[in-house]
């Protein structure tokens, strides 16, 4: 018997959210002043939730490991945010955004959640503009849009290649206003190390002050987890160095089910790995696929010549180039969804057509776009017979305006000028669709523990479309949680302040201190990074872009062994008190080493290919993902029982009433 109740309201799809809001219990303003909420994580989801809850009158405490909420990794999102405004009049609507997202997620997301997301998406843009977010505009003064993968309309709003930065600074400014009013208390350089349950409800957290090393108890009437995804389990990813799964993993161990951990997004356009010293990977925004064309040489000998340096990209004649995405997927071309583009790049490189020293790169080429824009601009400037030089100059100016900071970043890292030679790119771990299972109210299986943004599993199914993460983070924080949390907090108006001297707090604190002491006194031989890199290698080789049963079984055993070795042999220098970066890392890697095993177990159990989860055993003759809707059209939610390998599977069946489930095709 499943314990999962998704609490999806009844009634027609388009009326569910309105109806639900009308039926929700409210807390009166005077009572809100007596209710405390903890928000862990201050990215788009956390910051927007914290600001809105504080505006409503709740007392909010925020926690982030960074030295400022503004540094959360949402800041690095580049390309844009989707909204079904239909400002371009190109046929967009809430339904179409909903449809694209469900299809993009390979029919593994919940209809009601996704529709709600589409419904509130337009309001996010209104909100952000009102806050002073400087979105890109057209000459007439109205907002500009561009296109992203997996869709046929232009619904993406952007601020150059720094959309995440501008949206996060907007949410951060809303937080600052509430900090100034005394309604938010911000605990920066603090890390949550456990959740505290009292009578089965989330009532507080144990946190470590990362400057003094002191362990602190914080109580509240509800705990909101918005701590992001777990892509750093792969060691190399586009996540920030500090991004981690600890908050999510701790709530999982205390009773929150972990859903679809194997759904990982491998982003197709990242700067390739350059060597063993590499500490992280850098994304080149998907928006570049609006204007960039992806190709490898048609002939193997050309690819080899490029690899050994005797030829360059510009030496390959147009007819000898294989624009493989345009060839395989004529209707979406270079703008197929991320999972499809990544697998296609891997396929070409595995077949021997890769174009850098390691053979693990393809070209992303802007020459065609520079020419097209150049001609257009020349005409606008009244030059009717432009020279090639003039065309290039004008064209580059347009590209610079659109993607300037990305081109600059590329040049800094690779030391090549992408205006002159095509970029080299390769897929890398970017986003995790899986996360803590939540119901329609965003509440986990621990009452009073809510999970938002990338940390939950809810809206993207098995693959997320570009520019939808920012949308989901802000939708959850600004427009969903502030309503739904009231429903459960309305029962707390007489509870009073939760004391932190309860035995539950004492026990949780004791466990945290024990773990810290064990690590600091371990006196092992190897650094934390040594283990993290080993884990990353197992994950990439055996749980990465293509998976099979044999590899996944091996991964489960190897991760387990590595975890045992970690606890036997890790060396954490320094002391428990005071700033200790190695100790912080050790705590995070310890959790990744547990999650890894559950990740592999989930991937092993899902005997189908869908979205970012590609099982080599399940593919069509053309190498496309082959779903098994009869047996796997469900959310896999795992219950912790003391060991990741013994986690119990709970299934939430996915029901599609408003959309026809069919093979996902971008041809």
């Amino acid at each position, binding site marked *: 018997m499943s314990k999962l109740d998704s609490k999806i309201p009844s009634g027609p799809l388009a009326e569910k959210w309105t109806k639900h809001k009308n039926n929700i219990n409210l807390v009166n303003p005077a009572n809100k002043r007596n209710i405390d909420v903890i928000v862990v994580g201050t990215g788009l989801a956390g910051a927007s939730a914290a600001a809105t809850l504080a505006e409503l009158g709740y007392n909010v405490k925020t926690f982030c490991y960074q030295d400022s909420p503004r540094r959360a990794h949402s800041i690095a999102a580049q390309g844009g945010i989707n909204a079904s405004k239909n400002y371009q009049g190109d046929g967009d609507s809430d339904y179409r955004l909903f449809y694209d997202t469900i299809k993009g997620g390979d029919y593994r997301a919940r209809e009601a959640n996704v529709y709600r997301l589409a419904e509130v998406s337009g309001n996010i843009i209104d909100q952000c*503009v009102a806050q002073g977010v400087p979105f890109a505009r057209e000459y007439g003064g109205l907002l500009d849009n561009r296109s992203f993968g997996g869709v046929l309309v232009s619904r993406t709003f952007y601020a150059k290649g720094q959309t995440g930065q501008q949206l996060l600074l907007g949410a951060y400014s809303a937080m600052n206003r509430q900090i100034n009013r005394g309604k938010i208390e911000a605990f920066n350089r603090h890390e949550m190390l456990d959740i505290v349950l009292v009578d089965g409800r989330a009532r507080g957290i144990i946190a470590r002050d990362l400057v003094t090393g002191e362990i602190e108890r914080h109580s509240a009437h509800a705990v909101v987890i918005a701590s992001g995804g777990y892509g750093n389990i792969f060691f190399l990813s586009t996540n920030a160095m500090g991004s981690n799964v600890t908050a999510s993993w701790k709530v999982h161990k205390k009773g929150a089910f972990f859903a679809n951990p194997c759904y990982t997004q491998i982003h197709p356009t990242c700067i390739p790995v350059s060597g063993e010293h590499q500490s992280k990977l850098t994304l080149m925004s998907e928006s570049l696929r609006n204007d960039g064309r992806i190709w490898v040489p048609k002939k193997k000998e050309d690819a080899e010549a490029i690899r050994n340096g005797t030829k360059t990209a510009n030496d390959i004649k147009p007819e000898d180039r294989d624009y493989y995405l345009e060839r395989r997927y004529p209707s979406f071309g270079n703008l197929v969804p991320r999972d499809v583009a990544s697998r296609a790049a891997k396929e070409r490189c595995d077949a021997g057509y890769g174009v850098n020293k390691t053979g693990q790169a393809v070209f992303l080429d802007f020459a065609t776009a520079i020419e097209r824009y150049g001609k257009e601009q020349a005409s606008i400037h009244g030059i009717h017979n432009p020279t090639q030089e003039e065309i290039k100059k004008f064209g580059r100016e347009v590209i610079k305006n659109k993607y300037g900071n990305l081109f600059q970043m590329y040049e800094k890292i690779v030391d090549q000028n992408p205006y002159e030679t095509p970029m080299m790119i390769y897929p890398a771990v970017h986003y995790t669709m899986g996360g803590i299972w939540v119901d329609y109210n965003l509440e986990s299986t621990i009452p009073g523990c809510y999970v938002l943004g990338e940390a939950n599993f809810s809206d993207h199914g098995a693959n997320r479309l570009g520019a939808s993460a920012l949308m989901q983070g802000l939708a959850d924080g600004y427009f969903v949680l502030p309503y739904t949390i009231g429903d459960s907090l309305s029962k707390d108006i007489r509870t009073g302040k939760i004391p932190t001297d309860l035995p539950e707090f004492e026990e949780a604190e004791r466990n945290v201190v024990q773990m810290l002491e064990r690590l600091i006194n371990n006196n092992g031989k190897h650094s934390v990074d040594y283990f993290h890199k080993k884990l990353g290698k197992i994950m990439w080789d055996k749980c990465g872009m293509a998976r099979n049963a044999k590899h996944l079984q091996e991964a489960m055993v190897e991760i387990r062994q590595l975890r045992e070795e970690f606890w036997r042999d890790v060396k954490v*220098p320094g002391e428990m008190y005071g700033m200790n970066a190695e100790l912080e890392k050790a705590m995070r890697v310890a959790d990744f080493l547990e999650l890894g095993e559950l990740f592999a177990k989930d991937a092993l159990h899902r005997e189908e290919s869908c979205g970012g989860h590609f099982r080599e055993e399940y593919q069509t003759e053309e190498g496309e993902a082959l779903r098994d809707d009869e047996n796997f059209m469900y959310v896999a939610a795992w219950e912790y029982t003391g060991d990741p390998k013994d986690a119990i599977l709970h299934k939430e069946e996915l029901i599609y009433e408003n959309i026809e489930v069919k093979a996902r095709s971008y041809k």
Partner: protein
Amino acid sequence: MKLTLKIWRQKNKDSKGEFKVYPIDGIEGDMSFLEMLDILNEQLINNNEEPVHFDHDCREGICGTCSLQINGQPHGPDRLTTTCHLHMRSFSDGDTIVIEPFRATAFPVIRDLVVDRSSFERIQQAGGYVSVNTSGNTIDANAIPVNKHDADESFNSAACIGCGACVAACKNASAMLFTSAKISQYSLLPQGKIEATERVLNMVRQMDEEGFGNCTNTGACEIECPKGITLVNIARMNREYTAASLKKPLSNSWS
């Protein structure tokens, strides 16, 4: 390449710091500066020494966490570059590299190369926002057209990453480039103009209270800013400040 690193080591804010010298070998041009420090730290840990603490997070040049005064320059020798994007190809075999924390009274050292920039937080909290509720009941985003030039210029100011290089570069440890960037972002947009008077007065007051120095138009901040924030922002803030200071209080003394 082989390098000699002279790195500032300081246990905590109350202890006295000192430079320590670390030789390092096997560094390649493709490595980022922080990856070079990762390698040093791995060696220190293996030799049972404490690793060097430094601030870093996204390593994509956007979060503003990384800092470091490298050979006397915030974020090192390259222009428009954060330390995380500085690559070792900017150095040569045999170089000595001096690595210090950002130095300013308002940025006390926490440990080694890590400084406390919470003074920046308090400046933002004093007025770096538009007072609009996030309830969603706002007007349509396209209801107020904004001139593209103003919108782009506002974006250029908003691109500040709050790293503090401007303060570290300034002989007066002034935070005027940082503060003026936020004030400019809002003053160029219709949404921000409404509270312009209070914003500039409050943010400047907070900036002064935190112990940052004044601007003497040296321009080092603009040169060292990894995001190209210009002195025009400071000029704009000064104009806003003057205008705000001359505004009369409300005419009804009871209100």
